[in-house]
């Protein structure tokens, strides 16, 4: 639960600043191309560049470093893990070797180099993603998804899920607190059992809520049609300008590689 409490929060995206005000399609375009270039890259400069520029952009809107650090932690650990795995499995030049639990292991230079590249790609890619999520509310993404002709049903499920996620987290926390304050989590088995009934309650709660939500929807005239309503305004001139400059920037970035 701690994870959720700390991280599922879009309040940065709810604020108003120059990054959140950029048209969502422009942002998606930039981030999308950026992510592809990032995984295509075969040296560490481009990923690092993405990492640094995104970080700088996020700093301009005063994102707290703690939040940023918390979100980067998991991908970084994963990156280190990949570094070790690649080191163990790829290449010829053995750097270190030995046996552990009777199992022969050897770290190789080439593998470590690839691992390092992957590590920077993780850093760059994740920072690009964070740039998107810190500056774009999920509803904007839903709108853009509709514009991209993603099936409406999927978007509706996404927005429902997102809408009720916060509520269920809060409810679950209260239920957990009340179990905890009656000592439901004192031993391992009790903990597992308490989680079991918590899971059960969660299912029951979500289903009764779904029934109530459906009744409320019917009473507001819902007959199986659309759920989401507000549409994107058509792209304006400065959106195109932004799009163009992003495009030029990306082309420049990927060309830059050849001069390194």
């Amino acid at each position, binding site marked *: 639960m701690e994870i959720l409490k700390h991280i599922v929060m879009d309040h940065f995206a709810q604020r108003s600043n120059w990054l959140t005000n950029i048209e969502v399609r422009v942002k998606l375009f930039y981030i999308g191309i950026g992510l592809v270039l990032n995984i295509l890259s075969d040296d560490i400069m481009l990923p690092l560049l993405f990492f640094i520029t995104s970080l700088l952009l996020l700093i301009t809107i005063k994102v707290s470093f703690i939040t940023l650090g918390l979100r980067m932690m998991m991908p970084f650990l994963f990156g280190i893990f990949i570094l070790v795995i690649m080191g163990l499995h790829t290449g010829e030049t053995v750097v270190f070797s030995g046996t552990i639990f009777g199992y022969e292991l050897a770290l190789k230079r080439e593998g470590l180099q690839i691992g390092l590249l992957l590590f920077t790609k993780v850093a760059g890619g994740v920072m690009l993603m964070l740039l998107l999520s810190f500056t774009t*509310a999920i509803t904007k993404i839903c709108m853009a998804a509709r514009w991209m002709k993603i099936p409406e049903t999927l978007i509706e499920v996404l927005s429902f899920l997102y809408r009720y996620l916060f509520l269920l987290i809060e409810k679950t926390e209260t239920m957990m607190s009340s179990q905890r304050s009656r000592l439901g989590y004192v031993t391992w088995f009790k903990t597992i059992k308490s989680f079991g009934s918590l899971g059960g309650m969660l299912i029951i709660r979500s289903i009764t809520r779904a029934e109530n939500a459906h*009744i*409320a*929807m*019917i009473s507001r005239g*819902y007959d199986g049609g659309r*759920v*989401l*309503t*507000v549409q994107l305004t058509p792209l304006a001139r400065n959106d195109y300008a932004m799009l163009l400059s992003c495009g030029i920037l990306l082309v420049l970035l990927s060309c830059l590689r050849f001069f390194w």
Partner: protein
Amino acid sequence: MTIKIKVEGLIHKYPDGTRALMGANLDVREGEFLAILGANGSGKTTLLKHLNGLLKPVSGSVILDSKTLSAFKPSEVFRKVGMVFQDPNDQLIAPTVEEDVAFGPTNLNLGYDEIMSRVNNALELVKMKEFAKKAIHALSYGQSKRICIAGILAMQPEVIILDEPTSGLDPDGVKTIMKILNDLNKKQGITIIFATNSVDLVPVHMDRVAIMDKGIVVQEGTPERIFTDSKKLEGLKLELPLIAQLMEVLRDKEKLPINSLPLTIGQAKHELSHLFNRENNIQHAGSIE
């Protein structure tokens, strides 16, 4: 006054066999502010859900504008009669305020401009205009309540039904909601039906009261007619408004000469100061004498 909604002999049985309504009768007059009182489980919510056809009765009928409800298309009924549920989290389904308020009008198949103007109007009426772009989960309880009302207002209904809209709100929040509802009732002429457990609100804001008990409406009338006797109300698990309780005690225990039972602070003030002045005058008269 014309009858807006007429409920006749409504009987409802839930799938599990609970008989929640046992022949309820009720008249809702056009343009009135009607309170529905009743103990927990007396069938208030069940009755309200029949008024816009969310539940279907086993027998009996609901007549809206002198036409039985089953003769309407559901969408027509929902357009005329809007319902605000007790828990705002059940009702707010879209991720942002604006989208949620637009949900109803969209289902009416209006044009985009019409939808947006209705959304703006509704938000204006509940004084939440600047929250249009906010995420629903970032609202406080009282704010969500107001958005629920806006969502219904955007459908421009003739009747609004509210199920315990003030429970869990602080005194200031209660005042705000009641002010909004009173404005809608008095200025826009919307008929309001309001289920509640707080008897103290009733004499201040409502024109008429219906009391439910065990699935039927046992009494109907003006607050002055209904709130006359604490004994009878106790049997219905209710009580007099606090001011009335005080005045009743003064009348019955202290034998003060109070005739009609004042229910609100205004009435009680009037009555008591009157009484006091009379005493004073008598005393004055006495001393002059």
